[in-house]
Each structure stands twice: as structure tokens, then as C-alpha cells.
């Protein structure tokens, strides 16, 4: 359903859709099945600013507004969620902290490389004992002269298998002092930076999600992002932004699944008529379309607030919560509408179903999103 009244947004949507249909659609099923990261397609995306969506032009980016960036992620995810994930994580939580918190030297050193896609970015906070409880990270960064020595393990790192630059959250508290964490810019070429095996996951299988191990990994102190102890501040701000991206991803998955379900319902005949003529199916379709439209509005609202410079955290949480919930519901309905064929790998909907689920989990589980929203309302930050 065409939403954007703005021609520029339409054009960005048409352009991304063209790319996605031409380059990603033919391989999406195969790379999911084989867990391959499509390097040639990623290479083609580099010169088109897919990796610098909101980076200023002077650093080689496209300086897109947030709705445009969301549309790009949405259209990629509509065809291939795993690559939509790669792009949204890179832009939303790897590049974004540089834009917000890096000093001039760091920007000049890294932004070009990231915006051009020459370097793929990753953001790693999560550990075995620190999922929702982000404060419980155990990775340490101990200062030794002009270097910090990193030790620890990060898990479920999106883009982990291919990232060149990773933002790592580590404890930098002094002994006997209050626990504090900081963020470090770590290059994959640093000594002691090791990648784990690729995770074998239910969905997003073409994304190289893996663990990252740090064994006495030396990080120069000029690679500290912000100040020591800024970890929480940077983390929270980044997650707010990342949620918009994941919401867009979930929205794209839902859109793709709905389109497939509608097409199938019109073709599939039972009892001598298309199943689309059955009221139950029509109810499903009505619900899917309405919820997707509502989700889209919520997402674009969060984007507008962000671009206006207003606080957008709770709204981003709402968008993420709602879009991911809708994605799970819509993809489940889409499989149901396809009947037995929906359960078969012959059709694409089962992949959408598998891909959708994780959008309710990563970048803050739905439970955490509710916590964020409730706190905001209870503290009267928003109405």
C-alpha cells in the first residue's frame, strides 16, 4: 500500500526496491539456506551509499533524513531481511555512535571507511551474562600506559563474521570504584581480536552473526569513544536509534509477507473459488493491512521526532515493539494463508516467519521496550 505522499521518499523507495528485486530477490532463498553472505551484492551496494545512509556528504554519505533511511531498510528487508539487518545495524548502531560521540580525529579516521562500506561495522554489547541486563557486562578494558587491554567475549554480534570495525562495551572501572563502562573502537586487525563460529540460527541466516573474542587485545586510548564511563550514555542513545532501524526491518518483513499472502489468496482455489473470497481470509488481510499501516505511521513518527532534534527514545521503543509484534503476527498469518505450502521451503513465507521472530528479541526484547515506555510515562516524560 503506497504511503508516502512525498515524491522524494517515493523515489528512494522505488530505487531501493528496484535494487532489491534485481540483486537480492533471486538469491534470498539460497543464501538463507546455505548461510552465505553475498559479498558481490554487498560490493555493489557500496557505491550507492547503502552504508552511509545518514552520514554527512562531507564524509561520503548520503545525508538522508530518517524516514528515507527507514524506507531503505524496509525495502531491503521486504526482499531479504538478513541483508536489511546488515545495513540497519551498520548504519543504525555502528555508524550512529560515531556521528554522535566521536571526536574530529576519530570521525576523520573512520567515517569515510564506514560510509563507503569499505569497512563493515558492528556494535557489541551483549554477552553470555549480559542480555537485557546490559549493566552486567564482564568484558574488561584495563588501562596500561596509552593503551587499554581488552579481555572478554561478546556473543550474537550482527555482522560479526565480516565486521572490520566493532564498537565494544567494556568495564573500565577503577578497582574499588563504582562500576562504569566505556565504548571502544576496535578494528578487526588488532591483535587478539578473534571471531567465533557463525551462529546457526532460525532466521537471518545469511547474516554472519558470530561471537567476538578479545584476548589481551590492545586498543589505543584515542579509540575510546567519548569519555571513560560514557558507556551507559552511549549505549542508551545508540539503542534508541537502533530501534528505529529494527522497526523498519520488521515492517519490511511484514510487508513482504502480506504481499505474498494476498497474491496466494487470489490464486489458490478451494471449493471452486479463490480463498480470498472467504470472509476469514478477508479478515486476516484486513487486519494485516491495518496493522502494517499503523506500524508504519508509528515508525515514521519516531523518525520525524528524531530529525526534529526532539527526544525520541520512547517513541522509538513503541515503534520497535509494535512493528516487531506486527511482523510476527503477519508472518504467522501469511504462513497460515498459504496452508501446507506455507510450511514448505518451496515458498518464501516460511523464511519471513523465521526472520520475523528475532525482531521481537534483539535490540532490546519486547519486554524491555515495555519497560522503557512505562518508565517514560510514569516519569511523565511523555504524555
Amino acid at each position, binding site marked *: 500500500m503506497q504511503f508516502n505522499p512525498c515524491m522524494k521518499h517515493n523515489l528512494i523507495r522505488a530505487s531501493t526496491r528496484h535494487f532489491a528485486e*534485481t540483486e537480492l*530477490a*533471486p*538469491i534470498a532463498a*539460497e543464501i538463507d539456506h546455505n548461510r552465505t553472505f553475498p559479498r558481490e551484492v554487498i560490493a555493489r551496494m557500496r557505491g550507492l551509499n547503502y552504508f552511509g545512509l545518514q552520514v554527512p556528504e562531507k564524509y561520503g554519505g548520503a545525508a538522508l533524513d530518517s524516514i528515507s533511511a527507514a524506507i531503505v531498510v524496509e525495502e531491503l528487508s521486504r526482499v531479504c531481511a538478513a541483508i536489511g539487518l546488515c545495513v540497519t545495524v551498520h548504519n543504525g548502531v555502528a555508524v550512529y555512535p560515531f556521528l554522535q560521540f566521536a571526536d574530529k580525529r576519530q570521525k576523520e579516521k573512520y567515517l569515510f571507511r564506514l560510509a563507503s562500506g569499505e569497512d563493515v561495522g558492528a556494535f557489541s554489547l551483549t554477552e553470555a551474562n549480559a542480555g537485557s541486563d546490559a549493566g552486567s557486562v564482564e568484558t574488561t578494558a584495563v588501562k596500561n600506559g596509552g593503551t587499554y587491554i581488552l579481555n572478554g567475549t561478546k556473543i550474537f554480534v550482527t555482522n560479526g563474521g565480516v565486521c572490520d570495525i566493532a564498537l565494544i562495551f567494556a568495564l573500565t572501572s577503577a578497582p574499588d570504584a563504582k562500576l562504569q563502562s566505556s565504548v571502544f573502537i576496535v578494528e578487526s586487525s588488532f591483535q587478539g581480536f578473534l571471531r567465533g563460529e557463525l551462529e546457526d540460527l532460525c532466521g537471518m541466516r545469511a547474516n554472519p552473526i558470530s561471537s567476538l573474542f578479545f584476548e589481551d587485545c590492545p586498543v589505543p586510548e584515542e579509540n575510546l569513544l567519548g569519555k571513560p564511563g560514557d558507556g551507559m550514555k552511549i549505549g542508551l542513545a545508540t539503542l534508541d536509534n537502533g530501534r528505529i532501524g529494527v522497526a523498519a526491518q520488521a515492517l519490511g518483513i511484514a510487508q513482504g509477507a502480506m504481499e505474498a499472502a494476498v497474491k496466494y489468496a487470489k*490464486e*489458490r*482455489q478451494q471449493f471452486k473459488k479463490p480463498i480470498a473470497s472467504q470472509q476469514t481470509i478477508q479478515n486476516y488481510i484486513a487486519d494485516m493491512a491495518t496493522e502494517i499501516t499503523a506500524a508504519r505511521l508509528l515508525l515514521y513518527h519516531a523518525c520525524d521526532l528524531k530529525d526534529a532534534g526532539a527526544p525520541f527514545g520512547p517513541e522509538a521503543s513503541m515503534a520497535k515493539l509494535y512493528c516487531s509484534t506486527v511482523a510476527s503476527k503477519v508472518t504467522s498469518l501469511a504462513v497460515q494463508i498459504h496452508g501446507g*505450502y506455507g510450511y514448505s521451503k*518451496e515458498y518464501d513465507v516460511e523464511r519471513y516467519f523465521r526472520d520475523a521472530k528475532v525482531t521481537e528479541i534483539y535490540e532490546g526484547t519486547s519486554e524491555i521496550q515495555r519497560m522503557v515506555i512505562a518508565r517514560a510515562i510514569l516519569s511523565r516524560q511523555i504524555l
Partner: protein
Amino acid sequence: MTKQKSIWVFGDYRNYYQNRVTLQLLSKAMDLARVIGAQVCAVVVGHDIEEWIMEYTAHGADRILSIDHPSLTSYSTEHYLALMQYLVTQRDPDIILVGATDFGREFAPRLAKRLGTGLSADCVGLDITPDGLLVQIAPSFGGNMLAEIVTEKHRPQMATVRPGTFREIPHNYERTAIVERLPLPPDLPVSRARVIEYERAVQREHAIENATVIACGGRGMGNKNNFKKLYELADLLGGDVGATRPVVYAGWAGHGALIGQAGKHIKPKLLFSFGISGAIQHTAGLGEANFIVAVNKNPQATMMKMADVAVTADASDFLNNLIRELKKRIHD
């Protein structure tokens, strides 16, 4: 004295053996002519054209207007436009039919513009009223509907017709026609688009557009090895292999095999469609394939509904069995 009504068919002869559209149009022109008491006239221009004059006579022309000249050896749209304009101005035909070949589709609209008359392109049917109004039936709205189109005021009425729409009459040696061998008109303008190279394309290169039999495979074939078996079927039937876009991008077939909106437009007599759902980008290239056999696990796929014969089966499975059965039955 009332002028004799005439229906003209432009002789597009250069691929005579593969492309019978002129003969098909002559046959239809005969039907139309009968209703209004008109003469069927074939226009043949070129060099060394005796063979085509005889063929068109044997296939329905009452009259042949021919111009034979060395300067007309290779098709030249500009020359033919000038010649037709000259002939039409002199003879005032009621109707001109042109086959919708690549040539026809460029030539006819230009001729219509030059003559200031109306044209319906890619007609799939023609009819005529007793007072000589040509009813042109052409697809509209993306091919799902048909439209009846008429050119009410302007003459001649023009239409281009897809090859394979009509059936030619069998070659009849006993038919005769009035053959007018006309000289090249004196002040024919020099063609501004000069033909400097002109040769028949090596058959294999773009064989698929002219293939009589095509075995086309989609993603439902499963994998590259299964897809490759299509070549075996094609060889048995003397045909070619086509592919859908996902298949080409998956590397199972080369771009030359791509059939559809962005690929080749085909017009085989017999088309096998294996494991293809029938997305519009593909079906746009199917043209007027005479006989379509679709094989798909999903009996409700669009392609299955478009087919003359729809086989509900695993595409690769059926293909293997078809090859085996054919091998048993073929005897030269």
C-alpha cells in the same frame, strides 16, 4: 464508376520460411474482401522478388503491386515508406495490413503518421462491417481485456497483426493474380538512414526468438543440474531453452535465455513451461506461443491457468519422465 475496393497486405518476406505472417494476412484479407467485394492486393518491393510474387499469388493475392530495383536490395524503412506513400496516394486502398514483425512495428506507425491515418498495433483479430469499416481487435489494459477499435474517418485503415494470429491458406498453384511490375518512381527521396551492413544473423545467436519449440524453466526446477536437463528435451524436439529471471541470476542459465519483459520475446509453436509461477515480468515475453504446456506442483499458479495443458507434478520429475518417454517414441 465506383472505385474497386482493395485490401493491401505489405509483403514482409525476408524471413519467409520462419515468418509466415504475410501469408496469414493474405488469407484473412481474402475473408474480409469477400464481405465487401474488395480485391486483395499484395505489395512487394525489393530486388529479385519473383519468388515472393509467385508465393503471394498462390496464397491469396488477386493483384500484386511490385517494384523491383537493385537499390532496394536490403530492407530500408525510409525507402519503403516513400514507396508506400507514393503507391497509396496513387491507388487509394481502403485497408492496409502489416505483419507485426520488428520491421512492421517500426514501419507501420511511421506510415500511418505519414498518411495521417489511424493504426491499431498488435491486433489479435480483425472483422469488417458490410460498409467496409475495419474492426481491429487488440489487447488492452495489460492484455487482460480486448478492445474493438475502429478508424472512422481516415483512410486507409491500418492495422498490424501478430504472427500466428491467422492461418494461411494452403499453397495453391492454380491461383492467378494480376501482377503489376512498376518502375521505381522518378524522384524518390534519398534515404537518410543508409544501410551499410546487412546480413542474416547467425542462427544460433538469438535462436530463441525464432525457435519453434522452447523448453522454459523457472525456479521450480530446483537446482542447476535439474535445469540443465531442459537442454536434453530441447535437443530431442529441435528447440531451445529459455529461463526466467531468478534462474538467470542464480546462474543456472545465461542472459541470452531470459524470456520476459526485460528479455526475449518469443513466439514458439510449442512452449513447455517447467516450474514457473507466471510472474508478469515473464509472461510479458510469451507473446502468442501457440501451444503452452505448463508443469508445476501448484495447480493454481498463473502459468498453469494460462496453459493449453497444465500438468500438476514436480517439474523436474515430469521432465525426466517426458525425456524418457520421448526417447522411446521418436523415430525419424
